[in-house]
Each structure stands twice: as C-alpha cells, then as structure tokens.
C-alpha cells in the first residue's frame, strides 16, 4: 500500500515510459512491414488479395484475448516462434519486451496497413508510370514519387499504430503479464491501480493517456487539413 502511494506520487513514470517505448518500436517495425504489404494490396488484382485483406483486418474484430491467447501459444517456449527464440537467445519470448513488440505488431497491423493502402489506391499508377518513363526504376519511383505524395497516409498509419499500441491491454496481459520495467505498460498499471482501489493514481495515468491521445490525433487531423488546402 505504501509502495503504491509512493509510486503514484511521482506519477509512476515507469509504465508510461515503457508504453511509449513499446509504441515507438512497434510503429517503426510496422511501417517497414506494412508499406510493401499495403502497396501490394493496393495494386494486386490477384486471387490472394481478399484472403490477405481479411487476414490483415482480423485484429480489428477479434477480442484481444483471443489474439493474445494464440500469441501466447505461438510465442510460448513450446510454440513455433517461441521455441525458435529460446534456441536463438536462450530466453523466452513470452513475458518479455520482445514478445510484447511482436504481439503489438500483429495487434496494430491493420491500423498501419489500411491508411497506407487507401493512400496508395488514391494515388493510382499515373504518376508512377510517368516516373518510370522518365527513367526511374520501380524502387526509385516509389521513393521519389509515391512516398512524398502519400505523406498523409504515412502520418495516419504512424499515429494510429502508435496510439493503438499505447492503448492495448488484453493482448499485453495474455502475452506479457505484469512485470515492472519489462511488460508493465500504462494500461496494465491503470488496471492495477483500480484493482487496488487507488483511484487517484488511476486518474492521473488515465488523464495523461487521454490528453496524449487527443493531442496526437488532433495534430494528425490538423496536418491533414493543411495538406489538402495547399
């Protein structure tokens, strides 16, 4: 009890920092994965596309506990990925920060893919074709034409991935548990405080999250507006 009070007095910055770290790492990895995936989805007319789209959208509709459960099975020391990880590093993936990053990437995938995919679809092939005929390779055309033209899409994908990861709870609880400094992210900490009937600490952490989320989203929409009114 005394311990809990002292932690909440200095705003309990551990879980907050951990959440930020997790969200940042997840966002960077997700952009690297989601960009080629979204480009493929935007340009593919193949039979595989609907299957891929449904797979990417799964985390939106599945309860986080279901997702977390499968991740736990997969990432656990006897799971496919988990066993491989143990062999590689000697430590388990579950109940570790690395495990949280993997789980978060899966959990937030649609929030990175979908804004990018719609940005790429909106862009079409026109300017890319022009770039190709002017001597740009496909990678060059992507970097010099698609990326700068799809800046709002990348911004939305980053903000939504970051914010969504910041707010995840169920998956973290299933995969990461509640280890201070390792897997005890802000949403878990808030849950803890409420369980301990420490509403003051829960209030402070919740308020930080609420304000941060609002500010980030507001900035995103402001940038969008400026972009479209240029």
């Amino acid at each position, binding site marked *: 009890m005394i311990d809990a009070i002292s932690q909440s007095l200095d705003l309990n910055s551990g879980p907050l920092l951990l959440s930020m770290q997790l969200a940042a790492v997840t966002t960077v990895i997700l952009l690297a994965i989601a960009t080629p995936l979204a480009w493929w989805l935007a340009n593919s007319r193949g039979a595989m596309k609907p299957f891929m789209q449904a797979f990417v959208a799964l985390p939106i509709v599945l309860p986080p506990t279901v997702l977390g459960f499968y991740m736990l099975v997969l990432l656990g020391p006897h799971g496919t990925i988990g066993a491989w990880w143990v062999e590689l590093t000697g430590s388990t993936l579950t109940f570790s920060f690395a495990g949280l990053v993997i789980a978060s990437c899966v959990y937030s995938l649609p929030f990175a893919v979908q804004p990018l995919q719609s940005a790429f679809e909106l862009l079409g092939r026109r300017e890319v074709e*022009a770039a190709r005929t002017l001597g740009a390779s496909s990678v060059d055309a992507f970097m010099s034409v698609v990326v700068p033209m799809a800046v709002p899409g990348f911004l939305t994908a980053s903000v939504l991935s970051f914010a969504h990861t910041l707010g995840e709870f169920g998956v973290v609880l299933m995969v990461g548990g509640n280890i201070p400094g390792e897997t005890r992210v802000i949403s878990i900490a808030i849950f803890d405080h409420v369980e301990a009937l420490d509403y003051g600490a829960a209030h402070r952490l919740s308020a930080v999250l609420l304000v941060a989320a609002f500010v980030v989203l507001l900035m995103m929409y402001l940038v969008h507006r400026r972009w479209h009114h240029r």
Partner: protein
Amino acid sequence: MSAAASTPPSIEFRYLVEQAGFTLDIEGRFALQGITGVFGPSGSGKTSLLRCMAGLASPSAAYLKVDRDIWEDSAARVRRAPHHRAIAYVFQEPRLFPHLDVRGNLEYGKRRVEKNARSSIATDQEHIIDLLGLGSLLSRRTNGLSGGEAQRVAIGRALLSAPRLILMDEPLASLDAGRKDELLPFIERLHAELTVPLVYVSHNIDEICQLCDQLLVMQGGTALATGDLQSVLMRTDLPVLGGAEAGAVIMARVVSYDAEYDLSRLEFSGGVLQAPARYAIGSVVRVRVRANDISICDESSGQTSILNRLAAEVIAINQDSSSSVLVHLKTGEDSMLARITRRSAAHLNLHPGALVIAQLKSVSVRRS
C-alpha cells in the same frame, strides 16, 4: 521532312495484347524521324500500342527494335524495363509530380538519364525551356498551372529525359479548344527545332494533318495502313479516313503576298494556289484541301468566284456513298481527293485519264 540519303533509322514493332473484349494484334515499322501520327477511332488500340512501346503494358507477345537495338523480344525473353527504354511519354493528362515545383518536374528525368545510361543524347535545357515558354513558370507549384501550361511542362519534362523517341497520347485531349490552339504551335516548334522523333496519337485528322509526316492508321486493334502522310491520306479504301474530313495535304512554297486582298500566292507542283492571310515569303507551308471543298468541271470557261482552279488528271474514281464518289486527282506531282455526286461524275463523263479542272472552294494553310 526529306528522307536522308542513307536509310534512316527506323522502329519495328509487333505486339499481341489479349484482354476481355479487346485484342491488339499489330505489326509495323516507321522511320525514326519527324512526327508519326497514329490515327484511329476511339478504342482502336492507339493507347495500348503506346503503352506497349513504353513497357507499361504486359503484352502476351512482343517485339520492339529501335534502330539496331532490340528492346523487347518475347520469343527470346528479352525485355527492357521502362526506365531502361529511352522513350518519353506524354500522357493525356499532364501527370506532373505535385510535391515538386515546375523546375523539379523538368529535372526529374534529366537527373536520372546518366544513372541509367539509357541515352547519350545531349539535351539543351535552356533551349527547351525557351522553346516551350516555361521560363516564367520554373518556381511555380504545379497545382497552380493552367491545363495548357501543365501539359507544356509535361512535354518539357519528357524532352529533358534525353529520349530517342517521344510518345504523345492525345496531349490536347484534356484541353478545351482555346488551350488546344495555344499548345499546337509549341508542338510544331519542337518539330521544327529539335531532332527527336515523335509519335503523336490522335483521333482528330485535322491535328494529324497539321503536325505529322508519317501516318499509321489503326482500327480494331490492327494497323490498316502505314506510310507518309500524303500518300496514306489518298487511300480511299479506308473508311476511317473518309467522311467529312477526307482530303489531301499539299506542301507549297509562299511566293508572294497581295496586301490589297490579303492573299498569299503558294506555288506547288500542280500550279499556284491563293490562300487568305500572310505567310513568310519563301517558306514552305502545309495546305489542307478537303475533298468536300473541291468541285470538278471540264473546261475553264466562264467567270467564277472560285480563285483556285487547277488543271488535273483523274487517276481513279471510287464509290463513296450511294450518291457520291471520291475522285483521286493528280495535279503536277501532288494528289488530291474531290467528293462529287455520282450524277456529276456521269454527267462529266469522268474516267481515269480524263483531263479536268479542279476548283478549290477553300484551302487552309495548316502550318507555316
């Protein structure tokens, strides 16, 4: 465009594209010089052909030889990626890059030329900017440009990528009539001042007559005719060249100008024509004579309001419609078409070899 002494370099192509409801099955060859018009009704496959040449389409069979280099041969599994083909493309819409200003757009291709070593053709940036009147636009953003300005930037951007061939796919189609008239002279100037060959797609025969030296006529995904503009225009067996726009193009030299009546005298192999407006004396102009504007009589008697009367020989008479015929006439070395009623043809007793007088109700100078 006079032919060079040796055989000029040429481009050879063969493409097969099979899509639902459309097949492009075309084979052809044209000289790599001047402007080659690709003419045909909408849906005849003109754009598909250009996209194949630029490497933007996926034909099921392909062959493309530019001068001595084979760029594409599906039988030998040879295929150059679009960025390794020194072909620039001007699309119907300008397709400028909105995140770059006009200068950035112009230099986009230029900066990539050396990297790909796709062409050794030197481009004079200042000259091209000058030619297209882009000097005052350089630091402008692209979304503030008018349709005509944007298309001029697109043409400049294409030219600066050091292409061996420029493909233009109806570059005037997205512009209103006024903007078209504004852009056409720029394309004429490119033709006059630059040596890069151009393929110009249009479904407007008037534009083709104004700009092109060679003509490829397409219909239903195949080539109906290829050759120099003047002789292909005489092909009365091609329905797509018929109709109200059927007619000939004649090259004539301006010999004098009559200020009192505002008429220029134009000399050509078949005689002299008089056309309204003033043109530089000594220059060669392109004169368009529509079949509907020529009438035929058998002697030069009587006063008439028609200025241009030429002695001509009937070469052939082709059925045009149930009531009219197209008469192929020869005046000097040049050919013309005249559309007259079948009844008049019978009345005048027209037959190949007959000597007649062709009366030209109007002639329009299409290019000075």
